[in-house]
């Protein structure tokens, strides 16, 4: 196929696009655009979920790394010296020892079993961002012993129908709640603040200081976990090895390892839905473009036969149809990108709310490129086959049998 023939194909394709049936052309472009949106949107939501879950896990649940008791031990001892040691490791920007235990909360006539998490507030702010998400009241101070921070889902709403989980029924800052710890100790706390992070695991529990927890449980210099923040995001595995190299004997997990059960199942399920959706979308593209080109070529069977009769190579004719399909795919891609930009803008303003937090589609260049390549590939194949089939037909059969 020489350049001259390609020029002729381009000329025929351009004139057909310019002067052919605009309705069919626009409809085909619109369908292609919607398919492109589907190719990009669902994987971008999945990436958004993973990103949100990662961000929420780091910012509110685990930090980057979690140090846990070694072997069968139930707690980490000598926490003070251990955190000092970890804090000296290059790349570590903060540590927060935590203790977690079950408790029963009572407010008015309502009783609920939930976890109580303790931390030293001045340490916690170096690792998580819970302190930035206090929507009512204030964050805890290191010396607080009679105050408690409640997650919004635990505090709840006066109107039960607005609750996402069973709650205490609308506790507010300044109210007093009774907490009965698992060891039987009963304490009464004034609610100092309400936390809302949009992460269910964080918003459904309560927080007290380590000092208070130590007095309740009778422990000293002990923690159930130590959360670690590092300065290089994404380098968790490397830093885990670094901590081990610096002689940290306790078990160290990255936030992904801690969360893998939940997010792993979700991602696998979404991936299956995603693959099915992509295959269906691509089949729709193949069918639509095949039908459009097939009807087009069948309607022009006689004309194609006569073009061949006057000496126009069948490849010029086939390529003119392929070029039209490429134009449709290109316009569909551009229109699809506009749709995606609009959807993303809307979802950035009003994110999708998932249990792990607010999700905004994450559009990655590799995803766009993959979608463009697959859309063009299936479109070209779907356009080429019917055009080739019709253009290969015997000239006289085409002339006699055409419309």
């Amino acid at each position: 196929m020489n350049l001259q023939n390609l020029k002729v194909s381009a000329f025929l394709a351009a004139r057909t696009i310019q002067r052919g049936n605009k309705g069919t052309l626009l409809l085909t472009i619109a369908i292609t655009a919607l398919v492109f949106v589907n190719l990009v949107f669902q994987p971008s939501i999945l990436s958004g979920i993973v990103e949100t879950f990662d961000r929420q896990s780091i910012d509110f649940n685990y930090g980057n790394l979690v140090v846990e008791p070694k072997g069968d031990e139930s707690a980490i001892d000598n926490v003070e010296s251990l955190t000092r040691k970890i804090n000296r490791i290059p790349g570590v920007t903060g540590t927060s020892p935590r203790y977690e235990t079950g408790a029963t909360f009572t407010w008015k006539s309502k009783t609920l079993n939930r976890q109580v998490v303790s931390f030293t507030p001045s340490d916690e702010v170096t690792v998580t961002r819970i302190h930035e998400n206090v929507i009512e009241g204030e964050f805890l101070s290191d010396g607080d012993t009679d105050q408690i921070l409640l997650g919004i889902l635990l505090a709840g709403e006066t109107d039960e129908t607005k609750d996402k989980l069973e709650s205490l029924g609308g506790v507010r800052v300044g109210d007093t709640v009774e907490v009965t710890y698992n060891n039987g100790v009963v304490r009464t706390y004034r609610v100092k603040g309400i936390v809302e992070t949009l992460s269910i695991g964080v918003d459904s529990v309560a927080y007290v200081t380590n000092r208070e927890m130590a007095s309740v449980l009778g422990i000293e210099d002990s923690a159930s976990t130590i959360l670690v923040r590092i300065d290089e995001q994404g380098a968790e595995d490397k830093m885990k090895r670094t901590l081990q190299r610096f002689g940290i004997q306790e078990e160290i997990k990255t936030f992904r390892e801690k969360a893998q059960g939940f997010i792993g199942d979700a991602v696998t399920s979404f991936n299956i839905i995603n693959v099915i959706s992509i295959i269906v979308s691509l089949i729709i593209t193949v069918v639509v473009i095949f039908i459009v080109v097939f009807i087009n070529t069948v309607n022009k069977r006689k004309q194609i036969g006569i073009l061949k009769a006057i000496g126009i190579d069948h490849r010029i004719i086939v390529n003119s149809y392929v070029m039209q399909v490429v134009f449709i795919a290109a316009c569909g891609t551009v229109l699809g990108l506009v749709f995606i930009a609009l959807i993303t803008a809307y979802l950035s303003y009003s994110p999708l709310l998932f249990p792990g937090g607010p999700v905004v589609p994450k559009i990655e260049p590799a995803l766009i490129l993959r979608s463009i390549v697959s859309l063009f590939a299936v479109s070209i194949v779907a356009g080429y086959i019917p055009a080739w089939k019709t253009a290969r037909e015997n000239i006289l059969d085409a002339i006699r049998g055409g419309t």
Partner: protein
Amino acid sequence: MITARSLVRIYRLGNVEVRALRGVSFEIGGGEFVGIMGPSGSGKSTLLHILGLLDHPTSGDLAIDGINVLQCPERRRTLFRLNKLGYVFQDYALVPELTARENVYLPSMVRGMPRDEYMAASAEILGEVGLGERMEHRQYELSGGEQQRVAIARALVNRPSILFADEPCANLDSVTSKNILELFKKLNEDLNQTIVMVSHEDWHIEYFCRVIYLKDGSIERIEECKTTRG
């Protein structure tokens, strides 16, 4: 120019063998306007298709401009049709998305002619067929006769050795048909254009300088020089 020897064309329709041509031999010289006539089913169109390299004979020999065209591979036959032959069909077969001029210069584009040359050539040939003022019109804006003139201009733009016309007036009224035949006559006389035309209308005979009559796939008779040119 055209030398046909013992052309035989046998079709198979299921188990039935149809002998469309039964050994046809003749010669057509340069500058002739030859009519192929005969009743329906006599093999006129089959013969024209073989001469125009649109079909293969079952046996026989065919040379055009001294070239044994039956031995040529398909790709070369396509180029031969583009460069040496012109076609006019019953129903014009213009590309509806192209203007009259674009339809005409399309074969020249395919030949690789420079743009300014094919623009000039298409304007000239459209002027010759009387459509100088209608060049930028599209098919739906042209009458049947005008469309057929565009098809003729398209067939002639590459200055073919031979122009084949398969019942070009079949879809036209008698006045328009006469105009088209006058145009063929003018092209034949002024440009010495060789024309081979299939027709079943007796009144067309006056335009032909020679008529090959077919009957049941064989040449019934050949009548020489029926035109007023003598």
